[in-house]
């Protein structure tokens, strides 16, 4: 192994620099300036005839043509008549062909989906074509805890490590913990799976109580390695949850299940994001009062399962009116990453404000992953993740023209090799999309 490394690494290094340099020189050395576009920064007022300056993979300036000084050595790209907005952030998706826990248990906090993602999956291209630049990839909802989620950029990469986005670098956190309640995680076969909602809640409470005991032992050891309890991957993950370092992403549909998810988070003090929340409109005030944000989905029609018979386009507006924090997700393949902007359009259709619809596709999702310091809006110092559109983001006729991540163009509709992922066709997605969930592993 050592021989192998010493033989090849100089060659690899040379290769790396030859390949990487031209790209880096574009993304890093020379600033790139986009001029003439209407800029939707999301966190600030919309800017007509705006200027966006990026350098070293970050946004170095954004503002009106009169207020932003264009660096002398900059490469200028005229995007007059186009719209620039932040890269979309999706807080719940199943792209990347990953998997989660198995049938051996209903609780898998030790399982990491990051160990199973295919970085070259063309589902990432599909997401790019829809303008999605950051995504929370989750294992399914067929378990009370199906595993750790992973926050990634959808950029081209050969390894999952190159795609990770850390919400907490110091503690090595780049994902949350997927939980589920309601019918998906209930199975009829008996132990280890719950057969009822009450059993589901009891199993979750039990494991968190064990985690608290584990924490007491860790605290009692006070840094002394001899006193530490033996390592337990499940307990270590739940400790991160109890300490507020790792966020719980909890699949929940029915109004009472939503309240159960809130009740358990309150009891153990962990940070919670409610996901799907089909009947959220019925408990909008309770959600707002809880302070937990909701990541919701738009479906063209209700039904398909008991828990989704009351879902409608109004959920987002109802949460907005109640003052709850909310965002949209794709739950890809449940809704298509290529059409993520459509969700915001349907929110507006049902009375949501345009500003909230924009936030629900970007910064609100970033907040739910502790990534709002990096992505979700166009602000100086943030990652240069943005999309260029040929019209209003909420018109059906608007298409994403380009998707940029970390200052690099990752997708360009004018290139047929890229465009094909935006529309589909012969052999574009063959074989890569067979991960549509069944009921037990479902969404």
């Amino acid at each position: 192994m050592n021989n192998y490394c010493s033989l090849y690494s100089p060659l690899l290094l040379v290769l790396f620099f030859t390949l990487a340099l031209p790209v880096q020189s574009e993304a890093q050395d020379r600033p790139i300036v986009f001029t003439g576009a209407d800029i939707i920064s999301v966190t600030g007022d919309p800017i007509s005839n705006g200027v966006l300056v990026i350098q070293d993979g970050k946004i170095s300036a954004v503002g009106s043509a009169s207020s932003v000084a264009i660096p002398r050595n900059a490469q200028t790209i005229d995007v007059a008549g186009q719209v620039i907005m932040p890269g979309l952030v999706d807080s719940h998706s199943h792209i990347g062909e990953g998997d989660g826990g198995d049938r051996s248990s209903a609780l898998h906090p030790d399982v990491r989906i990051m160990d199973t993602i295919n970085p070259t999956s063309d589902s990432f291209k599909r997401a790019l074509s829809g303008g999605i630049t950051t995504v929370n990839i989750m294992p399914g909802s067929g378990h009370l805890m199906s595993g750790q989620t992973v926050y990634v950029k959808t950029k081209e990469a050969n390894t999952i490590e190159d795609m990770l986005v850390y919400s907490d670098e110091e503690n090595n956190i780049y994902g949350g913990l997927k939980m589920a309640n309601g019918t998906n995680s209930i199975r009829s076969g008996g132990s280890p799976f719950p057969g009822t909602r009450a059993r589901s809640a009891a199993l979750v409470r039990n494991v968190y109580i064990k985690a608290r005991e584990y924490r007491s032992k860790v605290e009692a050891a006070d840094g002394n390695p001899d006193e530490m309890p033996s390592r337990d991957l499940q307990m270590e993950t739940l400790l991160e949850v109890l300490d507020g370092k790792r966020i719980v992403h909890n699949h929940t549909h029915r109004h009472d299940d939503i309240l159960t998810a809130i009740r358990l988070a309150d009891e153990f003090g962990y940070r919670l994001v409610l996901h799907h929340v089909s009947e959220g409109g019925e408990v909008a005030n309770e959600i707002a009062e809880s302070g937990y944000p909701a990541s919701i989905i738009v479906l063209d029609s209700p039904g398909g399962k008991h828990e989704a018979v009351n879902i409608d386009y109004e959920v987002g507006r109802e949460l907005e009116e109640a003052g709850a924090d909310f965002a949209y997700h794709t739950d890809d393949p449940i809704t298509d990453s290529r059409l993520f902007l459509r969700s915001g359009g349907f929110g507006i259709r049902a009375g949501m404000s345009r500003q909230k619809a924009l936030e629900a596709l970007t910064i609100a999702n970033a907040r739910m992953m502790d990534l709002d310091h990096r992505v979700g809006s166009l602000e100086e110092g943030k990652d240069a993740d943005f999309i260029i559109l040929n019209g209003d983001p909420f018109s059906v006729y608007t298409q994403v023209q380009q998707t940029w991540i970390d200052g690099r163009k990752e997708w360009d509709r004018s290139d047929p090799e890229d465009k094909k992922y935006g529309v589909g066709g012969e052999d574009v997605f063959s074989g890569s999309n067979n991960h549509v969930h069944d009921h037990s592993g479902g969404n």
Partner: protein
Amino acid sequence: MIIPEETDMKSFNTHSAAKNITSTAMVSLTTRLMVSFFMILFAVLPAFAQQIAIKGELVHTSAGAPITNGVVLISDGIIEQVGSQSSLRIPSAYEVHEAAVVTPGFIDAHSVVGLAGIYNVDSDQDQLELSSALQPELRAFDAYNAREELIKVLRDRGITTVHTGHGPGAVISGQTMIVKTTGTTVGEALIDSTTALAMTIGSGVRSNFDSPGTRSKAIAMLRQQLISAQEYMDGDEDRSRDLGKEALAQLLNGEIFAVITAHRSYDIMTALRLQEEFGFKLLLDGAAEAYMVMDEIKEAGVPVTIHPTMMRLGGDGENASFETAGKLSDAGITVLFQSGYEGYVPKTRVVHFEAAIAVANGMDYNQAMNALTIDAARVLGIDNQTGSLERGKQADVVLFNGDPFEYTTTADRVIIGGQVVSEGE
């Protein structure tokens, strides 16, 4: 195949006309119930009878160019006049409605709504019977739940007519029919009791049945059935009745057509081959890979109910494209939109949402509008009564607050047969 309202019940009876006394008695009871229902309906109608004028900033008539500042006059459920507001005077007695955009009621050219219920549990899924892979005798109207929630979902969004019934998944899963998205019984909703036989060619069938286990076996079974039906048609008058063969005979006679769901290019070619052998009327359905065999489809002169544009990719449909509807339409093939069958969430799709994505990906706007209205009516054989805003047709009209294809536009009012049946979502 198409039966105007009075004779519609006759068609009900023809299909169910049994020769033994008990069944005859049941039939006459059914007939009596139906007849008395319609008498009540017509007796009551004049009380509802309304004279309505609908003013639209833009009126898509599906019978010529859209009219700017147009008006549609409706009397007793029938369209009286359509024209521009400057040329048509609105009589004073008329109740006036206004909208940004007015269209004919949209037609969902292939659905399972009313048979595949919102809960998606065994007890509300009647679109696919698994006891046998070939069951042409299954009638759609025996399983239609007119009070199904999803019908209201479609109606509220502007869909007034649905071709629905048995779904994909069997070699022959059963019959289809055409209904209006209104009424509390199938009798009230029905406009054609027997429209087509639903068939599927592809890899999906084998997972539902022990046999057929391959594509070629499925086609052999299907051909054998059709040949037996031909013999049945030529048989003695006093032969014992066979409900399945009677339905196949209707197909072979040209009274009804075959809706064949096929996604792979070679499965589409198989559908065309069968059509050529037996000469039945064919509606090609799904057709994800239609763009690979466009010349062949065009030459066969077969219309296509294209898969929902936003269909999930996978299985035989993995090569679907947002651009297919536009490509087929540009090639001169009649393309219609369908909600199709959904096995999970959402439980039904909405045809003009699907058309919108097709338009956003290259399909001509007016062509898409026609596909949702007059083209669907023509293919389904109901263009004498609906599908366009023209004098003498039933007043199936939708009032939108903007471009019907935009995400942010809603239907403010939906009118079926001159009655306001929905105030929108």
